[in-house]
């Protein structure tokens, strides 16, 4: 371990970033001395403010748009894109220059994540676009500069940094995030899954009392609904040598469904009312309406006696009184659109409609096609019924039709509306009651916006031996596609078998065994392989060859590519290689091609879309 002074946690969120830190020297046992860094950012032209959150928005200004002095930050001149609050506000009026949801693009398997594709609607010759990778890098660079400005003698590069990623991030997105963090100079880096970070934050907030609130045999369901994504995880409580242990046993799929969708849905309902009354709104006003809906929704869901909250869409011109449009949001609309639309009471065997497939669209983000969070949750719990089978102290779920959680932890800004957390709890408890299982307890969390950043810095602290750690490892097993050797049949593709490269639950800093199968790689030519992952096949050892499988069990990921450089070998030569998987100390999956007859290793790349497009 380094001699860092701080453990820093960075929540690199879809809609907001936050940075929290623990003073390692002042912390002892489970008492971590934690703080939140206020992030200086432009809030308007020439105006810099330090705010707890850095909105994950990036604005690419026109050269004539702002005087150079108006974009001055405390630590640099005024070059490059605008980040944070001002980017979000300016971008609402000029969306073609606004980069938003870069993180969702970073894990979009249908695009080259290193290609300058954002903002997607921008005219290419007019706006110099950024790649999803570079956008993430810019957010991290801003946080680094803010930190170094505040701590000139303890640069961020020298601290223990934990960056959080969704539990559902694929290996390529994890690798790109780690690479961006390393590119801005973060030398002591680890990745942490966001739902785990939320649970760490809960542990820290409990000041040691968590041991009284959970028991051996508990299964904690973490439901993290952020601005753009819904992330689910299951954490089981076991015992080893008399001490409680936490095991992350399952993570959900990547679901692009979050609070922003909900506010937008409400805005559409209200906008439809206005359109029916003959009033039309421009995009700026719809943005203002969305903003107003968020507040109105929170008011309605906080106070059950409120039936109607008035909404005013301000005019764009100076005539505020004459030009503003008055409307209202009713309880009935919120209940119908939000509570029943996104959190319907469904039976536990309900499944989301239309799984979003990767190849569908390259222009937009693959948003979840079914907006019902409860249906996604039912699918997750049904699919993960066997998640705790092999843990000591857990009985196989005999009679049940889904995995029974015993406690629920909510995270994400959506749950500021307490009624939504109540609705989910009620739906889950109805499912449990139908299986004659006891209801799940609610674990009271802390700040819904900041828990992930806080949990991340606390994790940096516990990694040094300061408290309980959640065990987990990789949340999937990984397979490479192998063509079966069978006589060619015209018009029939040879069937693909899946060779397991990495088993479920590989811990950081470990290597898998080398599977016996050899692959012939052509020197100097890129070779593609089909690549698969499974979040339920927990027992496949390295080298096992699956001849057929269910689509529900194993999901095809992006292709991977091995490229053998021609040095010391003849181009065109076929080299027999083995493929070996390992998990780096940072927490990324690494695949290497190793020739049978030599000491070399070649990295196998995950994100290879670029060559296909060119």
């Amino acid at each position, binding site marked *: 371990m380094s001699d860092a002074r701080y453990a820093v946690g960075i929540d690199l969120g879809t809609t907001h970033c936050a940075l929290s830190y623990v003073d390692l020297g002042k912390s002892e046992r489970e008492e971590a001395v934690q703080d939140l860094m206020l992030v200086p950012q432009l809030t308007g032209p020439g105006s810099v403010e330090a705010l707890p959150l850095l909105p994950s928005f990036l604005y690419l200004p026109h050269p004539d748009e702002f005087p150079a*002095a108006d*974009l001055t930050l405390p630590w640099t001149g005024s070059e490059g894109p605008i980040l944070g609050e001002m980017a979000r506000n300016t971008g609402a009026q000029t969306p073609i220059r606004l980069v938003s949801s870069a993180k969702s693009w970073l894990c979009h398997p249908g695009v080259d994540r290193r290609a300058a594709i954002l903002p997607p609607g921008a005219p290419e010759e007019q706006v110099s676009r950024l790649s999803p990778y570079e956008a993430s890098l810019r957010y991290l660079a801003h946080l680094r500069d803010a930190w170094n400005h505040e701590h000139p003698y303890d640069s961020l590069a020298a601290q223990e940094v934990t960056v959080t990623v969704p539990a559902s991030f694929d290996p390529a997105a994890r690798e790109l995030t780690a690479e961006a963090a390393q590119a801005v100079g973060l030398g002591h880096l680890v990745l942490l899954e966001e739902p785990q970070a939320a649970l760490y934050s809960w542990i820290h907030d409990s000041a040691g009392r968590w041991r009284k609130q959970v028991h051996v045999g508990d299964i904690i369901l973490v439901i993290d609904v952020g601005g753009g994504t819904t992330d689910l995880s299951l954490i089981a409580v076991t015992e080893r040598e008399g001490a409680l242990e936490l095991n992350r046993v399952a993570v959900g799929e990547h679901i692009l469904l979050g609070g922003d969708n909900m506010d937008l849905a409400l805005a559409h309902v209200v906008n439809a009312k206005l359109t029916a009354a003959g009033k039309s709104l421009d995009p700026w006003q719809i943005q203002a309406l969305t903003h107003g809906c968020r507040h109105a929704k929170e008011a309605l869901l906080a106070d059950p006696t409120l039936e109607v909250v008035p909404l005013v869409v301000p005019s764009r011109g100076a005539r505020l009184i004459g030009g503003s449009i008055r409307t209202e949001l009713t309880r009935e609309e919120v209940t119908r659109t939000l509570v029943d639309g996104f959190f319907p009471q469904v039976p536990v065997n309900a499944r989301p409609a239309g799984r979003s497939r990767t190849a569908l669209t390259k222009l937009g983000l693959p948003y979840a096609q079914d907006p019902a969070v409860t249906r996604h949750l039912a699918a997750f719990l049904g699919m993960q019924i066997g998640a705790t089978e092999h843990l000591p102290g857990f009985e196989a779920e005999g009679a049940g039709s889904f995995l029974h959680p015993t406690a629920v932890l909510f995270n994400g800004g959506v749950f500021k509306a307490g009624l939504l957390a109540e609705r989910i709890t009620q739906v889950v408890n109805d499912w449990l009651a139908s299986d004659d299982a006891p209801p799940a307890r609610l674990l009271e969390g802390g700040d819904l916006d900041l828990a992930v950043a806080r949990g991340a810095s606390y994790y940096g602290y516990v990694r040094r031996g300061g408290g309980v750690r959640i065990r987990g490892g990789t949340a999937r097993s990984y397979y490479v596609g192998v063509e079966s050797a069978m006589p060619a049949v015209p018009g029939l593709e040879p069937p693909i078998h899946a060779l397991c490269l990495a088993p479920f639950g590989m811990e950081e800093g470990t290597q898998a065994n080398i599977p016996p199968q050899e692959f012939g790689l052509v020197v100097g030519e890129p070779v593609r392989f089909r690549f698969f992952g499974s979040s339920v096949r927990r027992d496949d050892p390295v080298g096992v060859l699956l001849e057929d499988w269910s689509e529900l069990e194993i999901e095809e990921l992006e292709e991977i590519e091995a490229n053998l450089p021609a040095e010391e070998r003849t181009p065109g030569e076929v080299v027999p290689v083995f493929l070996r998987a390992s998990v780096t100390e940072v927490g990324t999956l690494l695949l290497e091609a190793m020739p049978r007859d030599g000491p070399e290793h070649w990295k196998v790349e995950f994100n290879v879309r670029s060559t296909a497009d060119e």
Partner: protein
Amino acid sequence: MSELLSSALNRVLLALNRARPALNRVLLALTAFWHILVDARFAATVVEVMADAETGSSDTPGGEPARLRKAEPNSGLQLLGLLQQQGRFIDFLEEDVGAYSDAEVGAAARVVHEGCKKTLMQHFSIESVRAEAEGARVTIPAGFDSSAVRLTGNLVGQAPFTGSLTHRGWRVTEVRLPQVASGHDLAIVAPAEVEL
């Protein structure tokens, strides 16, 4: 004769003081000398003032005479800009409310209220000066801070004063205005917008 002389000199002194206040201390010293010599009451006052100067107590706190200074315009402009951006403050006040119904004015007031409140909460920490409920009987002790508590009505006699609290007062405990880039023109509290 002395009365006549001193009043004449007084007038000269005042006129000179008004014209060039800092450059006439020699003349002031001479005049004061004359005054002390001929005017017993004036001499007594000078003794008092000099004693006060030695012990440090005086009518104006800190011993320094209070001076008026020009209010710095920048933070005022900055606040005006923030209120306009978040709460459409200037738009609202510049409009003729007489031309609209109460419902229309009320609707716009919601925008102003929400935005200005957000600005206020974001940039200032505000607490009430007195914690008691309005209408409560309060006793103001001797030596109270007369800028924080204003006595009104039947104001006679000596402290402690007892009365009913009509307004709790507000005190700003913290100001968190954004930093401003040195080249930024704060006089533009809202730029003109042109949609392309």
